[in-house]
């Protein structure tokens, strides 16, 4: 148990002293997961809107499928992306494997289903009269989308929070396509907080793992506060 206390103290030390290694890792985590979340949002919101407001055969099945993909294990996502971008894969020529870009792609794919699904939930929760009012006021598709999102902003940003949480906390895909590389240059490295935590854990450094976990939660808190500010506007 003392590892938990030690982990806390270590976390405080890491944050206060701005430990350069940890800061680099943390910065990479933020950049990668935030980028993935933003890209996923750009796909998930229009997609979710199209599904929620569209009427087409198989709509319910599609929603079921999306919900099923919530269970997609991160390792499987990692493997699929890995197969696509490895040297012998169809996109091998891009030489993306073991780069931060690959991690962004994997995390984007990973959070896309849940963000789409929660967007659908969020939009389906909007009062139908609001929907009709927007139509009757002569909204174009885009205007409709923007305004319905404003109405559902609380729930949609909750979806973003879930997406970000899933992206920054996952490790399976990150390690498979990123590789947890610690090189001397920032850009060549792919070690993020979760992969570092895994590594420390496998080395038996529990308090260091917990310290890094706390650093991760501090980052998440910051992001969530930012999200909450937009939610309550």
């Amino acid at each position, binding site marked *: 148990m003392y590892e938990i206390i030690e982990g806390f103290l270590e976390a405080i030390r890491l944050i206060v002293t701005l430990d350069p290694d940890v800061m680099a890792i943390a910065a990479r985590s933020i950049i990668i997961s935030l980028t993935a979340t933003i890209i996923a949002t750009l796909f998930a919101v229009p997609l979710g809107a199209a599904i929620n407001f569209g009427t087409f055969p198989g709509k319910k099945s599609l929603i079921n499928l999306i919900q099923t993909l919530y269970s997609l294990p991160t390792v499987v996502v990692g493997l699929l992306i890995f197969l696509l971008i490895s040297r012998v894969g169809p996109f091998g020529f891009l030489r993306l494997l073991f780069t931060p870009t690959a991690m962004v792609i994997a995390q984007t794919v990973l959070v896309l289903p849940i963000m789409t699904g929660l967007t659908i939930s969020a939009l389906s929760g909007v*009062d139908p*009269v*609001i929907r*009709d*009012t*927007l*139509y*009757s*006021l*002569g*909204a*174009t598709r885009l*205007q409709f989308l923007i*305004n319905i999102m*404003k*109405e559902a902003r609380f729930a949609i940003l909750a979806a973003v929070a879930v997406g970000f949480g899933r992206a920054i906390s996952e490790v399976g895909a990150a390690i498979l396509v990123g590789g947890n590389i610690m090189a001397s240059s920032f850009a060549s490295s792919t070690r993020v907080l979760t992969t570092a935590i895994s590594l420390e854990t496998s080395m038996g450094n529990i308090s260091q793992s917990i310290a890094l976990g706390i650093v991760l939660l501090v980052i998440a808190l910051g992001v969530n506060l930012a999200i909450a500010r937009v939610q309550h506007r």
Partner: protein
Amino acid sequence: MIELDSVSKNFGDTTVLAGVTGQVNRGEIFAVIGPSGAGKSTLLRLIDLLDTPTEGAIRINGLDIHADKGRRLSIRRMMGMVFQKPAVFNTTVTENVAVGLRFRGAGRSEIRKMVEDALDMVGLAGYGDRKARTLSGGEMQRVALARAMVIEPEVLLMDEPTANLDPVSVAMIEDLVVRINRDLGTTIVFSTHDMYQGQRLAHRIGVLMDGVFSQVGTPREVFTLPASREVARFVGIENIVEGGVVEGEDGTAVVDAGGVRVRARSPASTGERVTLCIRSEDLRIAAPSMDTPGRNSLPGTVTSIVPRGPFSRVTVDCGVPLSSVLSWKAVDVLEIREGSRVSVSFAPESVHVVRGVNHRGSGRG
């Protein structure tokens, strides 16, 4: 301008509209009245392209509005709609009213000015910065009105626009509606359960019953010459009596209604079954045995006196129950009490005769 051509609408097994046919002219104020659940909201929603008819067509300027998906937006932009239970966007009142203008790409200062004017018109000047979600029922309804009016649509659809308003606000909104119609030539279709509102505002009224228009006409036609027993009852004719013609010639008929004989102006001929409709206001109550020549005069006993606005409604049992409306003063002067013997009189011209079976149209009945 708006043509309803056998418009039907089913929800699953429920038939709500069963072939509504009618026409709203350009620049006209058209009221749809009808009982709760008749399909008024459904009809307005079909016109505003928020739902699709099961059968039939709605044409605006000759164009079937449901036919061409590509033109939806431009058709919708011709119209403004106020919903029965209006919803407001979760933002300020000003922003709520501005939405339609923004959609049309109006400039900032133009929007500011128009929104202010609109709020002023519905009596909500100074409410601009309030959060719309915290408004009272009537305030929200007025925001919804302002929101629909501010875009100055060619056609304004309003579903029970004053249902939640007090009489002072109602008067204000009615003035506004008349002004918009007159000044901008806006065609206005509204539903209401307040028949007097229909009468005050509308050039023509459509009575929606049993899935069809039972009657379409000017307010005067609908209120004095209802096409059926149901319409009569709905427009507030309190004295509706069934009977058979026992003597019919020269445009005058004597009708036997439950033993009471009533003379009425009607071309109905002997033996016909008819329904007699007499407005309470046309009944005069007087001391018993005061006969006026040329008038129907029926003796009876007062069974109830119920206050009704500045009046009292007095019901008299003359064999058939007949109600009249008297001012409180008149009740006092005539010393009418429950049980008083009185005489009820009315002119044959005041009796509207609905002939034969109900003139109901092809409803589900």
